[in-house]
């Protein structure tokens, strides 16, 4: 054998080595993704114990905390029947039907199958799921919580609605590609209790890292679409939808460290506080998920988020006052006077109602205005609209869209104006930055 190996032509030998390495790698990937199936299987507890009312109610609540409905429901469609297209940089992924229909939904699933999906991102038949289903985060939750959600899903009226096939560029959606991606970027990460912290802090961390899947948006995504660790809250640009999810660890971006806890809770519960307003995807999270959570859980999340902001607070270099051309400055001032001044005020001071609620936010000193990345500002000016109408903030004031009225130069100039006036010191916004978002949103 060794003799034959020595006599072999070096190129052939190299070929064999490469082939063997690839085989070992492939076996490794297979073992990584399906290896647990060879070992003893966890006992299926839910089959022996019927769901209690309390468990079902808990499941309903946890599904709200996970905002499952947002993706698993089409516009105007039956809740949780799936079929919604989620656009990714690699094409469209369609959400699955979570109602208990035996053919097209979860009717034949057991709580163990559901746990495998939540914890390992694998379907009942062992098929690997596309990570648009944020199983990095659902793998954080306990078996007990997974069972509760499943018990609640079983109580929904079954809906016959087949999940459309994903529409991804080859080979992204294939099982081998998913297997490799998962070996690189996914590992079930059950929640680790931090004994040095309070129970409240740990509850907040569990919600933020798990069902809340905050890092799915609030961490940067790499070229292969993977976001950071479940506890990475360092902010990121959301692909396709084009919103910037701010860095939750930097007080300069969110004010989480310097805002009193009750105001953070209020922002999460109502979508608006004295110093901040939610909009875009965060507005949706407040509308469909956070406003339905109880005060204790919101408080816990706020405590955890605030501690994260403090622990990594770092001084940021003062942005140099931008040198703005006279033409841009004049144009910006003119557009501001015509389009913005009436609501946001001569000094960018905004307007409050008689009861002290923010009607139109101040622009002077507003963290959202000063974010280094002007993406959200461009979105707000182009498309205007409303923050979420919630129980705690039922009748928000709105912002007129400028998409039909102002061109890219107007918008860039007015954004530059409000980023450099009244003590604001942020970078200039260019027409190109505006155009990129206008084009990506289809006008």
């Amino acid at each position: 054998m060794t003799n034959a190996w020595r006599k072999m032509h070096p190129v052939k030998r190299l070929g064999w080595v490469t082939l063997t390495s690839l085989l070992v790698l492939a076996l490794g990937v297979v073992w990584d993704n399906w290896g647990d199936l060879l070992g003893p299987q966890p006992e299926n507890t839910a089959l022996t114990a019927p769901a209690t009312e309390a468990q079902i109610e808990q499941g309903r609540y946890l599904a709200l905390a996970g905002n499952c409905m947002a993706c698993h429901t089409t516009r105007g469609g039956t809740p949780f029947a799936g079929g919604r297209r989620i656009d990714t940089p690699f094409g469209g992924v369609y959400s699955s039907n979570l109602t208990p229909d035996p053919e097209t939904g979860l009717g034949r699933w057991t709580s163990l199958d559901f746990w495998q999906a939540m914890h390992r991102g694998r379907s009942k038949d062992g098929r690997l799921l596309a990570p648009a289903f944020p199983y990095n985060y659902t793998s954080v939750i306990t078996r007990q919580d997974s069972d509760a959600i499943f018990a609640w899903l079983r109580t929904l009226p079954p809906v016959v609605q087949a999940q459309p096939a994903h529409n991804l560029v080859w080979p992204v959606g294939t099982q081998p590609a998913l297997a490799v991606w998962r070996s690189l970027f996914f590992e079930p990460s059950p929640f680790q209790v931090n004994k040095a912290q309070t129970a409240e802090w740990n509850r907040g961390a569990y919600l933020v890292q798990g069902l809340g899947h905050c890092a799915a948006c609030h961490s940067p995504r790499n070229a292969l679409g993977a976001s950071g660790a479940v506890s990475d809250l360092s902010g990121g640009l959301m692909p396709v939808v084009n919103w910037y999810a701010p860095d939750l660890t930097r007080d300069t971006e969110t004010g989480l460290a310097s805002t009193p806890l009750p105001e953070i809770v209020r922002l999460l519960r109502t979508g608006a506080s004295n110093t901040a307003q939610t909009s875009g995807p965060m507005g949706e999270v407040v509308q469909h998920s956070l406003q339905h959570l109880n005060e204790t859980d919101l408080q816990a999340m706020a405590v955890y988020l605030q501690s994260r902001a403090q622990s990594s607070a770092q001084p940021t270099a003062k942005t140099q006052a931008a040198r703005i051309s006279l033409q841009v400055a004049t144009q910006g001032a003119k557009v501001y006077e015509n389009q913005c001044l009436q609501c946001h005020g001569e000094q960018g001071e905004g307007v409050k109602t008689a009861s002290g609620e923010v009607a139109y936010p101040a622009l002077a000193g507003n963290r959202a205005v000063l974010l280094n990345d002007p993406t959200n500002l461009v979105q707000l000016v182009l498309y205007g609209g409303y923050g979420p109408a919630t129980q705690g903030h039922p009748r928000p004031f709105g912002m007129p869209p400028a998409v039909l009225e102002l061109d890219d130069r107007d918008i860039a100039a007015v954004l530059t104006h409000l980023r450099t006036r009244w003590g604001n010191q942020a970078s200039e916004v260019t027409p190109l930055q505006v155009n990129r978002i206008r084009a990506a949103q289809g006008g």
Partner: protein
Amino acid sequence: MNRQNFIPPQAAADLQSPSHTRLQTAKAWFFKGLWCATGLIALGLASAQTPARFADDMAERTRACTACHGEQGRAGPDGYYPRLAGKPAGYLHNQLRNFAQGRRHYDLMARMVDPLTDAYLGEMAQYFSELKLPYPAPTANNTITPERLAKGQQLVTQGDATRGLPACTQCHGVRLTGVQPNVPGLLGLPLDYLNAQLGAWQTKQRRAHAPDCMAEIVQRMPSEDLIAVSSWLARQPLPADTRPAERPPAGPALPEALRCGSAPELSATRSAPAQSGGRP
């Protein structure tokens, strides 16, 4: 300031003065004009410096709407942002729901309504329905033969029994100003808007709550009939009373095939009083 009552000073002077005093009078008018202009400019500056006071009301809360749909929802500058003022509340509320639930398609509108609750959308609908604004005179001037216009009028006022087409007036009211609470008026709308809506129903881009009676009606009409109808409608001045009728005109109830999910009261017994809520 009322633009219609403003007569240019020079023209007025020409009309009234005998020729020998014309120069003097003209001079006097010139200075009066100058004063007027200065006053107006000053007024303009003053109003620019002190913006309208913030009022915690629905007019303020619907600024995002009126940016495109015109001040007080009187309609946008082109035919694509329709009037909202004075349309029945149930109809407006249903349209907002149609955008939210994907029966009508316009991304900008979907972005507007998505974050809002059904109750708040209803409040906005109610607000616009209560605004009473004069309607503009009809402006349609597309080329169409008198015969085709007459055909349009006939379809609007009598329908076509052979095709099972009811008259527009049967549901939209004898005055065509709509019927409370769910049926919109058909007058005072630009031709472009009417054509765009009928076309959208044809291509199923616009839908209403099922069963969708308008979709069914449009499917029974060839495009040339739709254009005849829209061209006639867009040429009609508004009647003296522009308010939507309180209840549908007396007559036979709609046939089963033309039931309206968005206006269930149309299929109910005609003597019943009109509902006020507009809930589906």
